[in-house]
């Protein structure tokens, strides 16, 4: 993580999600289910200059996420890193990794897919390829790329 970002608003405990592609900070929060009154402070820095160009950064105080939750971020922000902070110190750095099974996070892009017809099922996908990112619907077998995934986060 860049020193300057840490300096701006250091958090005592929680997580800092760094290197999010520009403009996707809100989607990252959505994917993590962090919406409405969650009882912790969320700080977002959008369009921050870094060594590798522009990025977004999200900080969530007093909140920890397990690795599987964190891995969901990889669906829209494969370059993101997650820093776990305890007592102002980075105690763990986690690179996100797209899970093999993706359930209830992405809506199928195929309007004729059965998961888009008010049936009592959650959309589910299998990972086909990480680079480039491709996932396949368990039901209709339609494949979706990174852009389509980002546009169809539930």
């Amino acid at each position, binding site marked *: 993580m860049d020193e300057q970002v840490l300096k701006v608003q250091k958090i005592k405990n929680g997580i800092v999600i760094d290197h999010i592609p520009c403009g996707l900070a809100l989607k990252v929060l959505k994917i993590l289910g962090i919406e409405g009154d969650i009882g912790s402070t969320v700080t977002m820095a959008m369009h921050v200059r870094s060594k590798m160009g522009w990025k977004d950064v999200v900080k969530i105080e007093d909140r920890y996420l397990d690795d599987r939750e964190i891995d969901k971020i990889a669906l829209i922000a494969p370059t993101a890193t997650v820093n776990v902070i305890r007592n102002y110190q980075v105690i763990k750095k986690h690179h996100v990794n797209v899970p093999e099974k993706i359930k209830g996070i992405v809506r199928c892009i*195929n309007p*004729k*897919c*059965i*998961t888009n*017809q*008010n*049936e*009592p*099922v959650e959309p589910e996908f299998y990972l*086909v390829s990480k680079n480039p990112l491709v996932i396949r*619907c*368990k*039901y*209709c*077998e*339609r*494949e979706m790329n990174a852009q389509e995934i980002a546009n169809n986060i539930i």
Partner: protein
Amino acid sequence: MLKGRDIVSISDLSIEEIERIFEVARKMVPVARGEMKNENLRGHILANLFFEPSTRTRLSFETAMLRLGGSILDFSNPSATSIAKGETLADTVRMVDSYSDVIVIRHPYEGAARLAAEFAENPVINAGDGAGQHPTQTLLDMFTMVEEVGRINGLNIALIGDLKYGRTAHSLAIALDRMGAKIHLVSPPTLTMPTHILRRMNQKPAVHEKLEDIVDLADVFYVTRIQKERFPDPTEYIRVAGSYKITGKVVEKMKDSAIIMHPLPRVDEISPEVDNMPQARYFKQAFYGIPIRMALLSLVLGVE
């Protein structure tokens, strides 16, 4: 090994399981012809759950079940008859599941059969879901090749016509590739096989624009229809479709051992004069749908 299994997508079946289905289907051929009696499925009930009309497919499952002494519950056209509008497919399936031993489903939405299989305790067989999978068609196509040519491994198989929208060709290409065939794709440049299908194949298929390129090489010619709607200009359609038409003249250039297949119904992709030529197999192919479905029903019900 297939007892209790759902048959939703051809990719769910291993090569070993496909070969087992063929082995049982082979034994079913004389029963399917009515030359031998077999009452193995007496006391079993098949529910045909057809949400869109497909008379041929529905009747072929009925014939298969009746030939084996089983009974049929017909839930065809459920929106007009027994099933309330607005009911979810999941609920319909749970109800029909409790009335029968095996469900055969056809549905306009893609992935409907996978969903049905999740909600039914008994086996579910996909008889086509939207533009999606139709595994019994794929199985009967492959069975025709095995029976009529002797094998699939190493064959040069030409898939001809609309390879972009024709989903029959999609699942077939993936399955044949897994079975070790060399695939040749023959289509107009605007109707080529989508890349997401090509990506699922181990061996890169050969791509041809003209039928002549492989007419004397291919062991199997699998012909599919090119639909008029795909072309904004009707004269363009006539020109393009005509160049993939199987006529008597084309067949004369084929190997004697080659076979011509078509999922039927055909419109004018194959001239009627070809019907009596030794390479024509499309009517036999349609017949093989019966022993294949008999084999599947027997295997998933655990009675063979």
